[in-house]
């Protein structure tokens, strides 16, 4: 195939608690991203992309849910309504994948290929992420 290239580690940004300090999220994302880069010889591509979606995740959630900062800090990933949660994850995943593949190619000369790769990989990532979140959630409800 050679086109599908899903990344599931971004689940970190989704499950990081909303009420915790933003510094922890950013630094954590940076370290996780660098770790992935270290294993894949990608320079700093994953660190860059992961820190980016970690930074915008809060603004995006405010935009999608129409809630205030305070209300979001009170809520968790389990209390969010599913359509909002789903849209939030889709958008962040697309942004992340697009950044990764763009930085990897370092040019827009094969733009069609880039978009195709982003869409296909996002689809597979989404399936894996939703599945992973499901595991997280059921574990929580039993506890």
């Amino acid at each position, binding site marked *: *195939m*050679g*086109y*599908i*290239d899903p990344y599931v580690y971004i689940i970190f940004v989704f499950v990081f608690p909303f009420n915790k300090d*933003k*510094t922890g999220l*950013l*630094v954590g994302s*940076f370290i996780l*991203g*660098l770790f992935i*880069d*270290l*294993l*894949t*010889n*990608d*320079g*700093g*591509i994953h*660190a*860059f992309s992961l*820190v*980016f979606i970690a*930074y915008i995740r809060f603004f995006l959630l405010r935009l999608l849910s129409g809630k205030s900062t305070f209300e979001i800090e009170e809520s968790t990933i389990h209390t969010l309504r599913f359509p909002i949660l789903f849209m939030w994850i889709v958008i962040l995943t697309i942004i992340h994948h697009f950044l990764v593949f763009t*930085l*990897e*190619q*370092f040019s827009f000369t*094969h733009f069609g*290929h880039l978009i195709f790769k982003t869409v296909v990989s996002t689809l597979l990532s989404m399936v894996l992420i939703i599945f992973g979140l499901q595991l997280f959630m059921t574990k929580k409800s039993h506890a």
Partner: protein
Amino acid sequence: MLQLIKFFTNNRSGILFVFLELVAFGFIINSHSYHHSKYLNTANAISGTILKKSQNIQDYFTLSSQNKELIRENEFLKNQLEKKINESTNKTASPIDNISKYNFVAAKIISNSYYKRNNILTIDKGSKDSIKPNMGVILSNGIIGITLNTSTHFTTVLSLLNSQTRINAKMKKSHHFGSLEWNGNDFSHVQLFDLPIQAKIQKGDTIISGGKSLIFPEGIPIGIIESYSVRDKAYQNINIKLFADFSALNYVYVVKNRRSAEQIQLEQESNNE
């Protein structure tokens, strides 16, 4: 001053964000000039060990295809040996020819990559096995890449499937030279550039490694011409289908050229004169 401090404490996460992004971007730029990408590469002990462990587990699932590959390779080498024995009984070779110019070190790929624009592989041999940067990495049926960074036990390899790789190649039948590059689209095809129009080519012609580089031995089969076009009295888009399957690489050989130091020195001396 107080306002400045207030600004920084209020926008702490914003400033941290910009700072982290700049650092990450610095790493990306650094990785694109591959001679300098010394910081973040898999030739370090930590990621090397992790990759090797995970590869060891994955190996169990490909045992039968690995066996087939080894049998095929054995058969190829047996035939080569047979030919050599016949040759040496027929003529008396000069003693200098008996000292082979190259020797090979078998290495295992512990991290393979073929789906990105710029692919880098990792192998489980390093400076301990006297592997240095700029050595060739081959299979019996193809060129894989050139070594990049080495640590004690691991080495990264600049894959043929990388925008920075240029490899000297020639036609098997006519000895015309060209340069192999990859356009990033399909990992089973590479492109041949700078082939002179005087070379008569046909679909299905075999391309082999040229003897011009110090890195690769001459005559390693690379692939066959699948399609080409002619425009403005020059060849365009010569598409080469590779013999080697980059998605299923397992064991490779690192080429050590025993005479490369001698040859470089000689060429420099000739240039100075």
